[in-house]
């Protein structure tokens, strides 16, 4: 009896060990076009659902998002899916001797494609999803149009991705509609009635929005409803990154100034990008998530994208009391929207 109990105990122990290994974060590098991109896969790999997260910025670091976890994804998302975080070319702990010329939007999209290929190779049974926030969402749009037909990705999640440029007429129409909406909402609720009535009158008098001063004033009205969403970074978070992080902390931060040229190059290309013309070509399952008070990408912009895309499976979720970083201010609602979309 004693031996049977011992064998059973060993079997249970081994079984628990193997589960543990499945769920252990996996770390590897992807070498593509001269760059070594670090990738961390964390969360429930046993579910065989992997979301590749494309960080915003440009210049933000995915591995820092994983480490600091501002959206509490470890509690809200990772029990149900695995998330693959990575540092984009030229940021964070992406390393090697690639050239500044390779810092282009197309190369960023090629990098995503390479990582997805590697995820497919490592997890052949997993379903892959692509989720981007802000600049990352814009890259998701381009990825869908460039490599969507390869069918590596089953569904796309674009959180607060800009879809119009400053020179697009729609850009200003959308922002005027946003100010009208928040003005009416505030007047109805009796909040700053005089200010918002004046704002409505000002918009009625300025139809064109062609002057810089007009655009600046419109932006001031938008800023009135901006929501503070900075992640709470505690001393222990900084301490953990500095001393105990798996990532090499210093390379990224010591490079900020030196990398300015490459950063500017990327931002310039982003500003020139006629993204509006690519939106109607988006044809794969797409979830658009935004914040009700996102002054960078107002909900009206996402509504416009929703109307324009060719996707037959599409959803639009606007999170209340949230701004551009809604995954930080409304982590539970954000996670629910993502998981519901992936489960459908």
């Amino acid at each position, binding site marked *: 009896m004693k031996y049977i109990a011992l064998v059973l105990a060993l079997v249970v122990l081994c079984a628990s060990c193997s589960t543990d290994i499945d769920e252990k974060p996996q770390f590897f590098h992807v070498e593509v076009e001269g760059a070594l991109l670090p990738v961390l896969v964390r969360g429930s790999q046993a579910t065989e659902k992997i979301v590749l997260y494309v960080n915003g910025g440009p210049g933000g670091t995915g591995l820092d998002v994983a480490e600091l976890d501002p959206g509490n994804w470890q509690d809200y998302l990772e029990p149900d899916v695995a998330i693959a975080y990575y540092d984009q070319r030229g940021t964070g702990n992406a390393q090697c001797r690639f050239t500044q010329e390779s810092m282009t939007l197309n190369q960023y999209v090629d990098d995503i494609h390479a990582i997805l290929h590697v995820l497919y190779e490592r997890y052949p049974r997993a379903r892959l999803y692509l989720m981007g926030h802000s600049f990352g969402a814009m890259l998701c749009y381009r990825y869908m149009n460039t490599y969507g037909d390869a069918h590596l990705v089953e569904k796309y999640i674009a959180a607060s991705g800009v879809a119009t440029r400053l020179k697009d007429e729609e850009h200003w129409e959308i922002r005027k509609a946003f100010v009208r909406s928040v003005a009416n909402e505030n007047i109805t609720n009796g909040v700053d009635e005089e200010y918002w009535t004046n704002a409505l009158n000002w918009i009625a008098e300025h139809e064109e929005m062609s002057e810089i001063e007009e655009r600046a004033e419109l932006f001031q009205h938008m800023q009135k409803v901006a929501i503070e969403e900075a992640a709470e970074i505690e001393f222990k978070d900084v301490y953990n990154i500095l001393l*105990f992080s798996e990532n090499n*902390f*210093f*390379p990224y931060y010591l*490079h900020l100034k030196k990398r300015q040229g490459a950063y500017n190059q990327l931002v310039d290309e982003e500003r020139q990008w006629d993204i509006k013309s690519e939106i109607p070509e988006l044809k794969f399952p797409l979830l658009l998530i935004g914040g009700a008070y996102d002054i960078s990408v107002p909900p009206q912009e996402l509504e416009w994208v929703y109307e324009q895309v060719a996707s037959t499976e599409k959803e639009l979720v606007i999170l209340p009391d949230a701004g551009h970083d809604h995954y930080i201010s409304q982590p539970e609602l954000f996670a629910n929207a993502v998981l519901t979309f992936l489960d459908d």
Partner: protein
Amino acid sequence: MKVLIIIGIVFGSTSLIGQSYWQAGYTGGNIVHPGISLTYVQTVHQSLKLTRSGDTLHRELGMGFNAGLVYHKNYNTSATLLGQISKRRVKGNGNYFAYRIGLGYMHSWVPNTYVFERGVVKKEVTSLNYIIAEPSIEWGWSLSKSPGFIEGIYLRPKVQFSAPYFMGSNQYLMLDLGVFINTKKTAQ
């Protein structure tokens, strides 16, 4: 090749007579990425000064080499070899402050790498070569007035520049902590 010649000159210089000492200890970026470091320094010039308080102060110019190995589970596991020049001010009690510059070579391995080329994925350990420069400062504390085999401990923060790298060089802040052993005594 130029770098190898410079390293050779520095190594050759260490045959000069005078005080010499070894240092052995821990080196690493962050705390969780440990390594070992071995340094040899040969004094090539020294001067003695009497301070106002009556203490003696040795000023030494040293040359030598440093060999190191740093392990990082996920990123770069690296082996380094550098020639070094150092200046050291040793107090009468044996405590010292030094600053040094090293120049050499680093070979780095990045484990668990997937290479994506023309739609094909291959798994391999990526191997990288760098020229490195390491400026550092150092504090040493003598353990006693009549030291045994281990004469004292040292603390050496350093910055490691490695090149070629994206947009120039890469930098790491590192910390060495260890013991030093004198092999030849200074003539008092």
